[in-house]
């Protein structure tokens, strides 16, 4: 082996070791969570620590479902995520179509108004929105969770960026064929926007699913809670004494999004990092 290749091989081995170590450190907590959720209390509270469970038990999941209505929480989360993300995508699509393909007065101001909301931290709106939602009688309701967060600024922005790149000729041809705006939007613009559509939809799904502070403030009825809020309830009931149960519920909160991420990684990452391109 020549001097040059061996000098090259050494850093390569070094980076390989570093990468493996980094992967273990970053991945271990998730693995540890899943393992702990299927261990018996005896195995969990045993010193020195037992790394692998001797047998898989679903007791922790069953007990979590007894303490909080886990199935109901899962349905609530799925329903609210689909409704929230779906409506957000439609609102963003329509708004961006108007901003790009329609001519109307104060268009620039409307666009500025939409974009500026990206810079307004949601935290400052929480107290007034809470008061409004309470006065509408929307505390402990699905619309109370859903409606205040529906408006789409990020989606509108990404859709607009994409629409500006669409070939004008196709839309002009559609117009000559007598297609109205509604038809142009759904038959021509939407089919030409699949990647952006997927990115915006996936980012919305992740944000809606993980959203915590707002649903936590608006809901205290367990039947109406989302999964992350239900996890708080479980933490308050079980304290830190019952790790297996708490971690079983944590798996239920994280696993669905983890699966979405693993299956649709490329589109989701493209959406989540889109700010870097446009910012």
């Amino acid at each position, binding site marked *: 082996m020549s001097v040059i290749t061996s000098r090259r091989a050494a*850093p390569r081995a070094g980076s*390989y070791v570093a*990468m493996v170590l*980094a*992967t273990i450190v*970053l*991945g*271990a*907590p998730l693995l*540890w969570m899943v393992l*702990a959720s299927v261990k018996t209390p005896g195995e*969990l509270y*045993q*010193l020195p*620590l037992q790394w692998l469970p001797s047998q898989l038990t679903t007791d922790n999941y069953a007990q979590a479902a007894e303490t909080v209505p886990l199935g109901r929480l899962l349905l609530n989360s799925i329903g609210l995520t689909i409704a929230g993300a779906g409506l957000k995508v439609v*609102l963003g699509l329509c*708004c961006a179509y108007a901003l790009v*393909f*329609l*001519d*109307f007065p104060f268009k620039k101001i409307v666009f500025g*108004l939409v974009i500026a*909301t990206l810079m*307004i931290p*949601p*935290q*400052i*709106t*929480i*107290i*007034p929105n809470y008061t409004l939602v309470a006065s509408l009688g929307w505390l402990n309701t699905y619309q109370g969770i859903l*409606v*205040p*967060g*529906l*408006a*789409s600024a990020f989606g509108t922005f990404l859709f607009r960026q994409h629409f*500006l790149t669409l070939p*004008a000729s196709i839309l*002009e041809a559609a117009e000559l064929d007598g297609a109205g*705006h509604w038809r142009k939007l759904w038959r021509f613009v939407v089919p030409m926007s699949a990647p952006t559509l997927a990115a915006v939809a996936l980012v919305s799904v992740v944000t809606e699913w993980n959203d915590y502070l707002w649903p*936590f403030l608006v809901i205290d009825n367990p039947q109406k809670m989302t999964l992350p809020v239900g*996890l*708080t309830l479980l*933490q308050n009931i079980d304290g*830190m004494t019952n*790790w297996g149960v708490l*971690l079983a519920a*944590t798996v239920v909160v*994280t696993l669905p999004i983890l699966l*979405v*991420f*693993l299956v649709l990684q490329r589109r989701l*990452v493209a959406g989540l*990092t889109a*700010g*870097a*391109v*446009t*910012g």
Partner: protein
Amino acid sequence: MTTVDTPPAPTAPAPPASVPPSSTRRAPRTRLGTRRRRSALVWALILAGPNVALLLVFVYRPLLESFYLSTLQWNLGSPVARSIGLGNYVAWFNAPSTPTVVTTTLVFTLATVGGAMVLGLGLALLLDRKIAGRGFARTVAFAPYVLSGFAVGILWLFMFDPRYGLVQELLGLVGLPSPQWYTERPWPLVMVIVVYLWKNLGYVALIYLAGLQSVPQDLKDAAALDGASPARTLWSIVLPLLTPTTFFLLVTMLLSSLQSFDIIKAMTQGGPLGSTTTLMYSIYQEGFVNGRAGYASAVATVLFLVLLVVTAVQMRFVQRKVHYA
């Protein structure tokens, strides 16, 4: 697009705002033109109206109302409110807890932003090497970023459990005693910083990776031919070319770190003795735990101003970036 799971380079300019392909724009002022303009207006109301209305009601209205609420002595849900001008702001500046909150916010923000930038760049440099398994490593690194912050907090609380946690076990393996992560200052703050880093590292690494892949290979080759060491090439060629990426990440991480809530809520509830209460957390604490909604609105306004300054700095720089490239 290749199969590489990275976004386009942040240095790529946004597409120019070309004139929209709308034939209505060119419509002559005939009766037909007027009718088309009117129809465009109706369609604009139908299509953009709902989104704009929601933004006005749930973002702009509360923004303005929050400024107003900050001038009131008012408790959440109470029918009585008294106007006290800037009284809440004066009270905040003089409150005995304020210096602690400001210090905690500073430490948390600097450690999370600085740590994420340095470690993220390191991870990106590793993942930029053409070695087997880097796709898997990238997936593992990015996964925590998409998970619920609250769930992540619970999971790490177990990791840090002083008796049965994995962290104390690993520290024990190298002969170190486990600190009292839950109770003894400054460990609770260190704990939430570590968790925040774990969750956001993959994002920083991925953005840096995209930046690294846009650095022209011939520049690096030329430097190597001139006898520059890899470290020297990184410092003098690669890092300067990554400046726009670094700046973008700095601002993004600053904004998200200043607004982080879920992890702290899950792990420490701002305690013990307020040692993990950041500015953001104190808004929730004052407004919804102590019920002092007027005072909390004043704290929210302070946070809003801080975020506004960060954003303003960013907007100034974005214009300069053009000269750089």
